[in-house]
């Protein structure tokens, strides 16, 4: 293997790829060849680096210098200055909001420095399409350890005492699930990886697969060996994740070639194989029974779980289904031990498997936050630390309003509860949930009624329709929310909403309906005043619900500061603005379509929302 002096880690996760990361890579290759540096520099395509908001990005090793928001035109200068002359380029580095000095090293940027990596430990460090990179970072050592020096029972006990719980949202203790499946009656059993990540704004699982597919595969092999009588595993991944599917395919092929999958793994007499099953992207297929129905080729609908899938799952055989992130944690627990894993997090799991939240959790941090991206944090960290320390706070000095955890069916948590530790039980107590790890930050410009409507319209749309409470209940709830945002709400609507929500939660067949009203219930609980203003005063305090707002020009500002610049009138698509240059302007509210263009184009802040 050649000796290089520079390695350029180019992030080729989906986020950066859609921002033309491959163009950046090609430009780097071209420029490096032009400068005759190709024998000293290696370009490595990595999975998602996590700081998606800064993409396209590269990290230059060995110094670990982080370059962000790259354009093809930046590359010649970068190659000349840094790679040829050894002078890192400051203007392409990250500068924290409100500060002037850039931070050259990735490890010193707060977004990275405050994270703890277990599931994402290889992110940005390996080429996900090269199994040797994974092995070089200690990959498949856990499998070797499990197969040579541990009995299946010992593995299950290790997972149990680690306190690992389902990362897909349910939070069911993983070791207990494995044990139940092991004891279930059946000669043929299955393990499944749930990669049907359907939450809008969530990309944890996709990034793990794209960045480190072998960690998931290794976890599955260990699980299959521990549960016993398992010789076939399935990865259920949605069609909308083409890059994740491609990386899984490559990883499975390489693992097969190395004999890490297939017959007689490591000559220990254990046979196991994994196949990919593509889902069509229905949200409900992330639910265990619907997912298994879909793998069987049936319509992806859930069933009542009087008999759990660990007893009778896929093709009526005992089946152990875990989420991508859960599987990715397994090899590290086997290598580093349950004690190490359970030293991170909250509570005590030594007596009660539900007694705490251990290890780390990956969140996709999105919405009104400076550092959008993927973060892995220890359980028990406060929401405030995630949003302000790692996330870098709210952009444009706006005021924080609420954070939604757990994806479209998670609840909104207000400012007063921001010091809440991130923990399965604590989040449930305040009406939200851990969920799979979506984390959406909202600010004063977001209307809570409108957001509740948005998320309910998603879950309503994705409701499979099998049970009436979810199919009809969410529809009627949505009707009420639409009425309220149109300015036609009545005071008793709020009571109906609550009653309907509780009915849907209590009587739905699966967790889709069981959690869909969470956004409505929590916004009603913490932001009831906003609903009341919508209903009683027919106003939207955040200025979002179009039928409840009017754009108004302050004539004094318009003429005295802006000298009647006339730009708003020219831009208005509805010809609703009256006036002429150097005279004050006003808006005819009858004609106004409330598109907000005038508000955006006015440089003098003469237009406000009433």
């Amino acid at each position, binding site marked *: 293997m050649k000796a290089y002096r520079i390695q350029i880690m180019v992030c080729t996760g989906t986020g950066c790829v859609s921002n033309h990361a491959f163009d950046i890579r090609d430009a780097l290759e071209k420029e490096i060849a032009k400068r005759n540096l190709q024998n000293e520099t290696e370009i490595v395509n990595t999975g998602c680096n996590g700081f998606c908001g800064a993409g396209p990005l590269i990290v230059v090793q060995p110094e670990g210098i982080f370059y962000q928001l790259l354009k093809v035109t930046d590359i010649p200068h970068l190659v000349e200055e840094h790679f040829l002359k050894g002078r890192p380029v400051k203007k392409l580095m990250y500068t924290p909001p409100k500060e002037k000095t850039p931070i050259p090293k990735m490890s010193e940027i707060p977004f990275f420095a405050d994270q703890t990596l277990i599931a994402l430990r290889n992110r940005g460090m390996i080429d996900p399409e090269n199994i*040797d990179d994974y092995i*070089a970072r200690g990959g498949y050592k856990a499998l070797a350890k499990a197969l040579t020096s541990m009995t299946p029972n010992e593995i299950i006990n290790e997972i149990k005492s680690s306190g690992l719980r389902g990362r897909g949202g349910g939070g069911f203790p993983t070791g207990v699930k494995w044990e139940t499946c092991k004891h279930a009656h059946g000669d043929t059993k299955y393990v499944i990886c749930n990669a049907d990540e359907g939450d809008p704004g969530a990309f944890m699982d996709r990034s793990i697969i794209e960045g480190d597919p072998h960690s998931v595969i290794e976890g599955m092999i260990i699980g299959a060996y521990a549960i016993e009588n398992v010789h076939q595993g399935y990865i259920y991944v949605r069609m909308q994740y083409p890059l994740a599917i491609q990386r899984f395919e490559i990883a499975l092929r390489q693992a097969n070639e190395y004999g890490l999958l297939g017959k007689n793994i490591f000559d220990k007499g254990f046979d196991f194989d994994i196949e990919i099953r593509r889902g069509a992207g229905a949200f409900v297929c992330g639910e265990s029974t619907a997912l298994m129905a879909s793998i069987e080729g049936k319509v992806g609908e859930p069933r009542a779980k009087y008999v759990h899938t660990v007893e009778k799952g896929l093709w009526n055989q005992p089946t152990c289904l875990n989420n991508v992130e859960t599987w990715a944690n397994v090899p590290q627990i086997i290598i580093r031990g349950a004690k190490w894993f359970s030293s991170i997090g909250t509570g005590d799991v030594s007596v009660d498997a539900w007694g705490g939240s251990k290890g780390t959790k990956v969140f996709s941090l999105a919405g009104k936050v400076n550092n959008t991206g993927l973060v892995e944090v220890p359980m028990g960290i406060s929401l405030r630390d995630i949003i302000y320390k790692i996330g870098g706070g709210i952009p444009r000095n706006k005021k924080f309003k609420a954070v939604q955890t757990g994806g479209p069916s998670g609840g909104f948590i207000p400012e007063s509860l921001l010091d809440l530790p991130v923990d399965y039980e604590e989040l449930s107590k305040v009406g939200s949930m851990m969920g799979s790890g979506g984390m959406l930050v909202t600010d004063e410009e977001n209307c809570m009624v409108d957001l509740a409507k948005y998320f309910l319209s998603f879950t309503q749309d994705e409701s499979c329709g099998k049970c009436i409470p979810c199919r009809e209940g969410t529809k009627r709830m949505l009707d009420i929310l639409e009425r309220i945002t149109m300015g036609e709400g009545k005071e008793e609507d709020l009571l109906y909403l609550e009653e309907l929500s509780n009915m849907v939660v209590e009587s739905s067949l699966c967790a889709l309906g069981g959690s869909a009203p969470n956004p409505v219930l929590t916004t009603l609980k913490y932001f009831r005043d906003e609903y009341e203003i919508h209903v009683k005063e027919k106003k939207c305090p955040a200025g979002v619900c179009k039928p409840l707002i009017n754009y108004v020009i302050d004539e004094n500002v318009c003429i005295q500061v802006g000298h009647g610049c006339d730009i708003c009138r020219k831009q208005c698509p509805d010809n609703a603005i009256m006036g002429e240059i150097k005279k004050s302007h006003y808006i005819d509210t009858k004609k106004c379509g409330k598109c907000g263009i005038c508000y955006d184009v006015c440089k003098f802040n003469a237009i406000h929302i009433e």
Partner: protein
Amino acid sequence: MAKLKIEDLDKIAEEAKRKMNLREGSGKIKITVHMGTCGISAGARNIMTTFLNEIDSNKLQDVIVTTTGCAGLCSHEPMITVELVGQAPVKYIDLNEKKVKKIFSDHVLKGKLVQEYAYAIGSERIL
């Protein structure tokens, strides 16, 4: 590709160690070639490639070579800093290929300082 045995995992890891050390910024020995305009015009590129070739032919895994800008001593370029883990960095000045080979065989391979080419031990204080 042949089926892996358990001991093959370590072999693969060992072979990739040089690459991984560079990536992790670790390694027992770090050689920094000063490549400001002064260094480059004095032949720093040749110094650097000599190091890379020596590492390659000696199959060393835990040495990383990196570059930095001008060290402020332009009249004595090309210069390098050799840093062994846990020891003070040593600056060598006025280098040529022959000197580099000696530094490589003595300091890098055997950990023995090459007194006659060394300029300073330790580094500046940053206030």
